[in-house]
């Protein structure tokens, strides 16, 4: 199974649900890696759903793409990365009308960034469904140099931009779709605890 139960945390930390079919004129599903499993589960609940669905999928090295294609969605796009897919996401949202349902599934980084696109297109955040699947890696912002480090799995970690040792916080920015990383050895440089895997 690709599901993970996140421990309870501060109010800033996003919480994710389970995708369910909702009435709508059109459906946009954006997923990466194991997020495909959430879409497969969703499609199994409503046979009519896929005829009105556009799937944007980023495999990240997994092999779910064929299974998604077999659902016969109205449109299917497979992108090499989120950055490569974001143009299409913006175009689809820009052309969309009220009655569109948005479903996001997969990693926190993908869901957070796609959520931002959907909200700035005019959909309220509370009307967008999310389901976490797969990697628990986080998209982190270094609060010192503002650089983003993707797919962080240990705490502390080294900023991929400025090289500081950063402590992984649950403090989350919806605007940046990233958690905040704060220098862990500012007062005693070099005194860095050994990195441990997140949630261990």
């Amino acid at each position, binding site marked *: 199974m690709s599901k993970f139960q996140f421990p309870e945390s501060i109010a800033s930390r996003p919480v994710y649900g389970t995708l369910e079919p909702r009435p709508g004129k059109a459906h946009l599903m954006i997923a990466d890696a194991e997020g495909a499993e959430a879409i497969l589960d969703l499609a199994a609940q409503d046979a009519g759903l896929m005829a009105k669905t556009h799937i944007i999928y980023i495999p990240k090295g997994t092999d779910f793409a064929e299974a998604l294609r077999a659902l016969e969605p109205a449109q299917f796009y497979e992108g090499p990365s989120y950055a490569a897919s974001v143009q299409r996401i913006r175009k689809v949202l820009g052309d969309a009308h009220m009655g*569109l349902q948005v479903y996001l599934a997969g990693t926190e980084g993908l869901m957070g960034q796609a959520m931002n696109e959907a909200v700035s297109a*005019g959909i309220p955040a509370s009307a967008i469904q999310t389901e976490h699947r797969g990697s628990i890696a986080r998209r982190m912002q270094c609060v010192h140099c503002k650089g983003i480090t993707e797919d962080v799995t240990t705490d502390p970690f080294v900023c991929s931009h400025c090289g500081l040792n950063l402590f992984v916080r649950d403090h989350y920015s919806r605007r940046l779709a990233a958690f905040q990383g704060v220098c862990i050895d500012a007062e005693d440089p070099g005194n860095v605890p050994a990195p441990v895997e997140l949630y261990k």
Partner: protein
Amino acid sequence: MSAAPQKAKAGAEKIAVTVSAVVPLNDLVTRFEFTRTDGADFPPFSAGAHTVVEMRDGDRTRLNPYSLMSDPADRSIYAISVRRDDQGRGGSLFMHTNVKVGDQMTLTYPVNLFPLDLRAKKHVFFAGGIGITPFKAMIAQLEQSNGNWELHYACRTPALGTYADELAEKYANKVHIYYDDQSQAIPLEDLLDGQPLGTHIYVCGPAGMIDWVHATATAHGWPSENVHSEEFLAPQPGKPFEVRLCQSDITIQVGEHESLLEAMERCGVDAPFLCRGGACGQCETDVVEADGEFVHRDHWLDDEDHASGKKIMPCVSRFIGKTLVLDR
């Protein structure tokens, strides 16, 4: 605690006004315009706000909420349009028959329970009958900022189409009127189809119309956050009942034709309120003890609260039974 000063009395702050114009618009609707008695400007209001009008009807004080329908940019007047309800509790009838130019009256500061969502990419208004009033102010406000809006307005007949001609003439491309007597109806499903992402809809009119718009929008996949409505309920008469108010340490009788809130006020209890129509939540009161049945009529509490028997909205809800003790 907020820094706001504690108010001495319940309800919004009050403004002494003079009736400056009484303009009959058709058989049922009359516009009343007010200026401030002290000659100053009115406080600014945002479109969709209402004011509670205090009417001195003999030894009875009537307090009715009405949407402000004047241009929010014009601070020299406040205006309301009142539909006469011959079967109602008498507030609108009092306005129509007793209020004359030059009369001194009292209004409350505006309270907005039906604001525009200014993040919207487009605003679509659905009005039924006298439900046109808040949209008059909203249209004036949006025109100032070149806002994207359209109005769909259902009236019974051309003769009773309050402001219909005026609006249709001024905004010919944005205003659509539907007359019941010509079997015209708002094509709601078509109108919900194809609206740009980020459109918000607003409905004001009879309860059936409000429910219809909410239900149809939900079925078409509209988020509830994008669907706004306002309906003020008038308190309905019911069997008299007795209530014990334990904070005030008195037992009061609620008459057939008065609300629980009005009965409290008559007995000198300073109970909080803003809208007096079951919408704002200000008068929510905890139930200490109850042996009987609640008649909940508000739009504020959810079904769970209604079923719990722990809360009541005294502005519109009643009680049938032996004992009711409230924490007031």
